[in-house]
């Protein structure tokens, strides 16, 4: 099979620039301010709720939620609510014209509950009223008769250790006949033999929390009825094309009658993936019923109980190693709790199992993973997508192995780390672009690892320091989760300015700036010439979802292909105008000249104007499809992702031995992102990802009452780090090992930036505790709350009392 032209373009650009140092590029790798920064510091109207004033006479939609976390619905009576002043209509599942489902991967999630409610955020009715207050008050009058069922919050009530078989229990999804959403496995080598040969075997159980995204902008959608029977929706969504599909399905409309526009998002982190579909569908329903603009606006409480979370994990790991620290095998059983609905759970489970042995040479592995339902808030996408959970377990295991063997944690990682030419646990050959060892070495040097590790040993005081390392890898883009493609449009305007359209959204991560830098570098024009349009399903090409750290690689490749083709055409025209070989054309807008005759210039505007008269098209569409991923369901063998981002994190913590309070003092992050495309954004990510990961490590979890209600539905009870909680210094370091199928060699960073933070902190805390393997084994769950760490100190009398 011949290579598609777009792959050839990407590879050609990589080959040509492979040895060029990043500092020699004009725009790539530079600290360029993001395209939307000025509108943001002016406080302009760029978020969904800011647009409400632009629409006259809107209606407001309030979601009436269930009172029970698990119950059968006997009857819904909305007659009282409909009589309430200001109420226009109250909708239930019966009013849905299309299919009552917003399940992301499998159709298990009704938009409006019909037969059952399965968690405390399920919507039973929608009140449409003249004001949000009217709607909320009327919501209390919606009368639902329930038959309460047993509430299951513990995934170990669904499956059991030793094979993860499903137990007898009250079914949450009786319509599916099972509460196991999906199962995955890896079978590599001979695990029995590995165990026999092992000098040490470390077994331990790990738990990770249900993390909440806590983006500061809560969910918002505005739907406007269109004259043709269609609807336009402004929604907080990361994936406008997925949102369109969901809305079209609920309304029973063809895709082209539903237009979804995604303005700037006030944070997303994965959380604005499927709730975007839900709020857009609710607003659209109300707009079509009332023929008026309809607004959905969540309070913080609604946001916390109403959108997908990070899957909590319970896992049992067994690591086997030789005396010299060489990993011989990994055996594990992993349970991911997806809450009431699958959401992206099946994909999260798959990404978790792919990464379940860490970035190491593992020849023998036996891993089983099950994603199960409970009556918690549903879990879905959250930055890292299953990888932070398994990485916590794997990286704690590596430290326990090191401790047991008396080897430095850095040494055991260097001994087993993946290098160029190695195969992953799935048998995938990594023939280039593996910068893990370099990342470890650079982080170790910057953090002063060996010195501090020695300095912090055998402390006696009340305040003790500890230093820990964790490493990670993270598959780029969506791999075997689906058709992995992206597209982009670049249109050069007649005055030389440029319009760039992509279906990829910005929820703060700033990856779009990376793409702008790629276009600028390729065309030879400053990024300031380029305007980024809001993603709009009616105007921008489908670029696939804005997930999986895929924007820079996939979106960047599509834009690179478009820009490259435009550049070829412009080079040819310029060569006619300037009289030299097209290869010699230099575009350094506003100047265009031949490399051997820089004095003889034309301007960029002139070149564009001539294109207009000479019939050279100035719009281009770029497309890129990732090589199809391979995955054998029975063995977990194949090539799950096209390539991997690598990283090493070192955290330096201070532990108050009397209270158990942990504070991170300093941290170093080193990531191999192939090529540094967007320095400003990359630094922000390394630091911001660290802070969010630190929250995951130290303070964040959702707590439930036995009947399935969430206790902490506010930002004073759901703790996230504030300006007073962050380390003095977080030092980002970049490794650029390249990737042949990435734009200029780039790889993704969005999710990797959180993956190994928690284990690096946990390892540092275990170091500070300093009680040997037994104590260290107890550091096996996050968040590392003060009471939990204190309980370890008390149990082992580590304070000497």
């Amino acid at each position: 099979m011949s290579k598609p032209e777009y792959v050839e373009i990407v590879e050609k650009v990589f080959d040509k620039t492979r040895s060029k140092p990043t500092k020699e590029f004009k725009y790539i790798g530079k600290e360029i301010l993001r395209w939307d920064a000025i509108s943001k510091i002016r406080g302009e109207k760029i978020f969904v709720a800011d647009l409400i004033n632009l629409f006259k006479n809107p209606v407001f939609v309030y979601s009436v939620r269930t009172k029970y976390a698990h119950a059968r619905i006997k009857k819904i009576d909305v007659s009282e609510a409909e009589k309430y002043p200001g109420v226009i209509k109250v909708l239930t599942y019966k009013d849905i014209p299309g299919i009552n489902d917003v399940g992301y991967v499998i159709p298990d999630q009704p938009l409006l509950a019909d037969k059952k409610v399965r968690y405390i955020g399920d919507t039973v009715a929608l009140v449409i009223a003249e004001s949000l207050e009217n709607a909320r008050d009327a919501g209390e009058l919606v009368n639902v008769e329930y038959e309460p069922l047993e509430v299951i919050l513990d995934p170990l009530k669904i499956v059991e250790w030793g094979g993860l078989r499903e137990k007898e229990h009250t079914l949450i999804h009786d319509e599916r006949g099972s509460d196991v959403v999906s199962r995955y496995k890896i079978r590599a080598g001979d695990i029995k033999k590995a165990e026999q040969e092992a000098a040490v075997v470390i077994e331990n159980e790990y738990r990770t929390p249900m993390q909440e995204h806590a983006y500061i902008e809560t969910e918002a959608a505005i739907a406007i009825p269109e004259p043709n029977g269609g609807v336009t929706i402004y929604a907080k969504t990361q994936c406008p094309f997925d949102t369109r599909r969901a809305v079209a399905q609920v309304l029973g409309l063809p895709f082209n009658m539903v237009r979804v526009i995604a303005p700037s998002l006030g944070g997303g982190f994965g959380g604005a993936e499927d709730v975007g579909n839900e709020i857009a569908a609710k607003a659209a329903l109300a707009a079509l019923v009332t023929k008026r603009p309809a607004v959905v606006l969540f309070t913080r409480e609604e946001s916390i109980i109403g959108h997908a979370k990070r899957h909590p994990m319970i896992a049992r790991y067994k690591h086997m190693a030789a005396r010299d620290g060489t990993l011989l095998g990994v055996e594990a059983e992993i349970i991911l709790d997806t809450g009431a609905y699958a959401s992206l759970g099946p994909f999260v489970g798959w990404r978790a199992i792919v990464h379940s042995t860490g970035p190491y040479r593992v020849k023998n592995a036996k891993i089983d993973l099950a994603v199960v339902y409970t009556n918690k808030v549903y879990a879905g996408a959250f930055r890292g997508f299953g990888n932070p959970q398994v990485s916590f377990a794997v990286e704690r295991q590596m430290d326990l192995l090191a401790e047991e063997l008396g080897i430095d944690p850095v040494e055991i990682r260097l001994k087993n780390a993946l290098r160029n030419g190695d195969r992953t646990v799935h048998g995938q050959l990594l023939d280039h672009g593996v910068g893990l060892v370099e990342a470890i070495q650079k982080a170790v040097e910057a953090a002063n690892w060996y010195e501090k590790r020695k300095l912090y040993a055998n402390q006696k005081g009340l305040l003790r320091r500890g230093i820990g390392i964790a490493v990670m890898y993270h598959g780029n883009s969506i791999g075997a989760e689906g058709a992995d493609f992206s597209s982009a449009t670049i249109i050069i305007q007649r005055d030389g300015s440029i319009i760039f359209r992509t279906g990829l959204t910005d929820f703060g991560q700033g990856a779009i700036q990376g793409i702008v830098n790629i276009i600028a570098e390729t065309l030879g024009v400053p990024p300031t010439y380029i305007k980024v349009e809001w993603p709009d399903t009616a105007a921008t090409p489908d670029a696939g979802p804005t997930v999986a750290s895929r924007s820079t690689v996939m979106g960047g490749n599509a834009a690179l292909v478009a820009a490259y083709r435009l550049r070829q055409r412009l080079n040819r025209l310029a060569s006619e105008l300037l009289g030299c070989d097209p290869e010699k054309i230099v575009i350094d807008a506003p100047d265009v000249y031949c490399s051997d005759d820089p004095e003889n210039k034309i301007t960029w505007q002139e070149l564009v104007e001539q294109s207009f008269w000479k019939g050279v098209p100035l719009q281009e569409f770029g497309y890129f499809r990732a090589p199809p991923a391979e995955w054998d369901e029975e063995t977990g063998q194949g090539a799950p992702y096209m390539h991997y981002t690598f990283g090493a994190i070192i955290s330096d913590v201070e532990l108050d031995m009397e209270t158990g309070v942990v504070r991170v003092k300093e941290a170093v992050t080193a990531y191999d992102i192939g090529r540094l495309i967007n320095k400003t954004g990359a630094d922000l990510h390394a630091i911001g990802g660290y802070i969010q990961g630190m929250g995951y490590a130290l303070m964040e979890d959702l707590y439930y009452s036995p009947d399935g209600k969430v206790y902490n539905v506010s930002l004073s009870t759901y703790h996230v780090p504030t300006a007073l909680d962050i380390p003095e210094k977080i030092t980002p370091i970049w490794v650029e090992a390249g990737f042949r199928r990435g734009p200029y060699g780039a790889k993704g960073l969005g999710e990797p930036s959180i993956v190994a933070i928690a284990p690096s902190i946990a390892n540092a805390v275990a170091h500070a505790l300093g009680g040997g393997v037994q104590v260290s084994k107890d550091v096996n769950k996050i968040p590392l709350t003060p009471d939990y760490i204190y309980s370890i100190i008390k149990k082992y009398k580590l304070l000497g009392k």
Partner: protein
Amino acid sequence: MVETIRVNLKVNGKQYVLDIPPDERLIDTLRYRLGFTSVKEGCGRGECGSCIVLVNGLPRHSCLTLTATLDGAEILTVEGLAPEGKLHAIQVAFLETRGVQCGFCTPAFMLLTKALLDKTLDPSDEEIKQWLASAICRCGSYHYYFKAVRKAAEYLKKGKILFDEKEVRKNLYKLPLLR
């Protein structure tokens, strides 16, 4: 029938006479009645800090404030930091230190900076942290915002308060602009 209360408010230098329902929150007056949407609602409980505005020069959660209690008050939002075509030194500092990510919390952080620097141009590190801990930035730009406060203080010490927006753009990008 809901009665209203007459309130005289000066917002961003302009005088308004408003008849307000007694239970209307300042955030709703600013966002929906007057259109100052830089003021953001993130929690409605005074926790996230995104709704912070300056009332008579001091930070205040507009979600926990009833407009009817503010008769005669002066209010500043980010829209009022600089006139059309200009940028305030604080805005310039926030741009130059490059910490803006999703941007939802940024207006509150800039107003906190304004109130702090109105009190002192030499705040201690701990003071900066205490003040900026009034709002939550989930993207994690805090370190950048600390730097922005220092940078803004430098400008203000030199008496540089307003900057020409076009000049700022030019200097920021150090790149040619099309126009």
